[in-house]
């Protein structure tokens, strides 16, 4: 049986889903303006940092990786929403994915763009970022291909390229429809992006094949990208980083936070663009169950990681473990445990409590919790190095806070602009396909 929105007449589906593109409400403008102001504040803070140097941040010996690396890992994790949700559900032909996939794919692209900014911000002298690229230069040297920094670069370039194509491909048929009826500048834009799509069976066949292939490829890339991010840490022989489970642990955390971001984005889109008929309790319920599953999986990895360290009782590792669980960083650690496990477990595990609102609350909780998780992984290890006399603390400054806040604003702004330019739900996929059952 098809899901409820698919029973609507097609012209109504098209009207409902194209309508948000042509109207701009005051609420939309207000939220975009706020996001723009916060984003600009972040740019000003970055400009201040570029002018004064990295001394304006809280980074100091021995903690040279702080909030910027936390943000990098966090945003790359969020980007897993699109690939994992969209690609897996597409490959398994799950019919309920239809209103969800494009929202997820857009999150991937924007989160990656934002995440990829952080290594550049973290470099300090951002204008020299191109030294990472292997280009013939006057110094006759090449980048060190053994460096995880270069692994990150190649992984992110591949992932960004793949994600943009993966978002773009299923947009083409909708762009062709939009090209027919819109304002002149939009018509030109859509016509150019639609590449002359006519809806012939050759085009549909090629599109379906390409989408299936891309789904397979992007899945492998997504897993590899967050594994590479995990290896940035795990390849260092540092206490509580040098762990064989860091790859899957990070991938699990990434999927977990990605699903939370998707639920939050869907809840906002549903309200702001008035898409209650299309993004139903049914979709939130399924995503909530996935979120709960990932919460349990995340808990399992967290316990496995911490329990083995505690049982091993290695003094260097225990220094970090103690800092995380009992000392300076304990509030972050226990808040993380509460937000990532207790909140979703209660709100999503008890069926009576599992509503759209509770799923949204649980998602916000998970997003905060996962940011804290990245902080708890990155900072205590660096603050407690093997040379115990070099131990220190790290507190971010307003510069780092402003830049972090700006990235959230940038994400909101990019997403809202996207939702005004392109249908956030794939219209052509909504048509009932005779061969497809829910």
């Amino acid at each position: 049986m098809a899901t409820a929105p698919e029973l609507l007449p097609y012209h109504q589906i098209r009207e409902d889903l194209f309508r948000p593109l042509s109207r701009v409400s005051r609420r939309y403008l207000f939220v975009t303006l706020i996001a723009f102001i916060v984003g600009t504040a972040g740019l000003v803070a970055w400009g201040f940092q570029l002018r004064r140097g990295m001394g304006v941040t809280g980074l100091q010996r021995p903690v040279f990786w702080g909030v910027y690396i936390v943000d990098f890992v966090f945003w790359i994790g969020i980007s897993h929403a699109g690939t994992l949700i969209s690609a897996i559900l597409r490959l398994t032909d799950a019919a309920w994915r239809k209103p969800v996939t494009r929202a997820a794919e857009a999150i991937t692209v924007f989160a990656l763009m934002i995440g990829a900014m952080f290594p550049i911000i973290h470099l300090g002298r951002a204008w020299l970022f191109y030294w990472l690229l292997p280009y013939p230069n006057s110094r006759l040297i090449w980048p060190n291909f053994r460096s995880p920094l270069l692994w990150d670069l190649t992984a992110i370039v591949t992932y960004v390229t793949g994600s943009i194509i993966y978002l773009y491909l299923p947009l083409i048929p909708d762009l062709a429809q939009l090209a027919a009826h819109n304002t002149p500048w939009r018509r030109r834009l859509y016509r150019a992006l639609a590449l002359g799509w006519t809806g012939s069976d050759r085009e549909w066949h090629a599109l379906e094949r390409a989408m299936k292939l891309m789904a397979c490829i992007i899945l492998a890339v997504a897993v590899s990208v967050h594994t590479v991010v995990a290896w940035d840490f795990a390849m260092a022989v540092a206490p509580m980083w040098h762990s064989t489970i860091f790859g899957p642990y990070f991938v699990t955390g990434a999927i977990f936070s990605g699903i939370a971001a998707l639920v939050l984005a869907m809840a906002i889109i549903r309200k702001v663009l008035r898409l209650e008929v299309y993004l139903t309790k049914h979709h939130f319920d399924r995503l909530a169950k996935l979120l709960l599953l990932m919460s349990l999986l995340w808990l399992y990895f967290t316990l496995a990681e911490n329990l083995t360290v505690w049982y091993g009782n290695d003094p260097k590792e225990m220094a970090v473990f103690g800092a995380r669980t009992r000392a300076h960083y304990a509030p972050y650690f226990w808040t993380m445990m509460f937000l990532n496990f207790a909140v979703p477990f209660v709100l999503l595990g008890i069926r009576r409590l599992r509503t759209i609102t509770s799923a949204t609350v649980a998602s916000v909780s998970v997003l905060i919790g996962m940011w804290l998780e990245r902080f708890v992984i990155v900072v205590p290890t660096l603050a407690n190095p093997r040379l115990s006399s070099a131990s220190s603390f790290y507190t971010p400054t307003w510069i780092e806070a402003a830049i972090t806040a700006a990235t959230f604003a940038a994400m909101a702004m990019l997403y809202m602009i996207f939702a005004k330019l392109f249908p956030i739900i794939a219209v052509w996929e909504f048509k009932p396909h005779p061969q497809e059952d829910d």
Partner: protein
Amino acid sequence: MYLIGEFKEKDAVAAAIRRLRASGIAPADLDVFSEEPVEFPRGVLDRPSRMSLASVSGAMLFGSLATAFIWWAQHNYSLVTGGMPVFSFWATGVITFEMTMLGAIMACFGWFLWESGLVRKRDRTAPVPEVDPGSMCLRVRCRGNDAAQAIDAMRTAGAIGVQRRGEA
């Protein structure tokens, strides 16, 4: 010349294609236009694809080029590695993997553009029918003296209307 038949049912389109092919019209001269993907039974209007092969080829090409480039760059400016190999596949395997996947992605996208005809229009003068929601159009390229037989085949199969357009 071109004929454009409008249909409401997928089965009617399939029947029309079978009749047209039986009358000697090649699959390359048939195009179905719709606002959604339409699947026909195997053998009706198959569109063989080499997209998977293209993706694998792209992956192998990019992967090989990346590995060769790293090998060359590492030897072009040898770092002091303390007796360890200058080029190590394990230490650079991540880059090889990512470049391999990038090759697969680029080849897949490129092949999609090529195979779909979006960058390689076979006939720019061919008419593109306006498809109403819920209906399908079958475009047939045929010689003028075959037109009557083709129109008859489409009408018999269930076309609700057939139009003649352009010259072949």
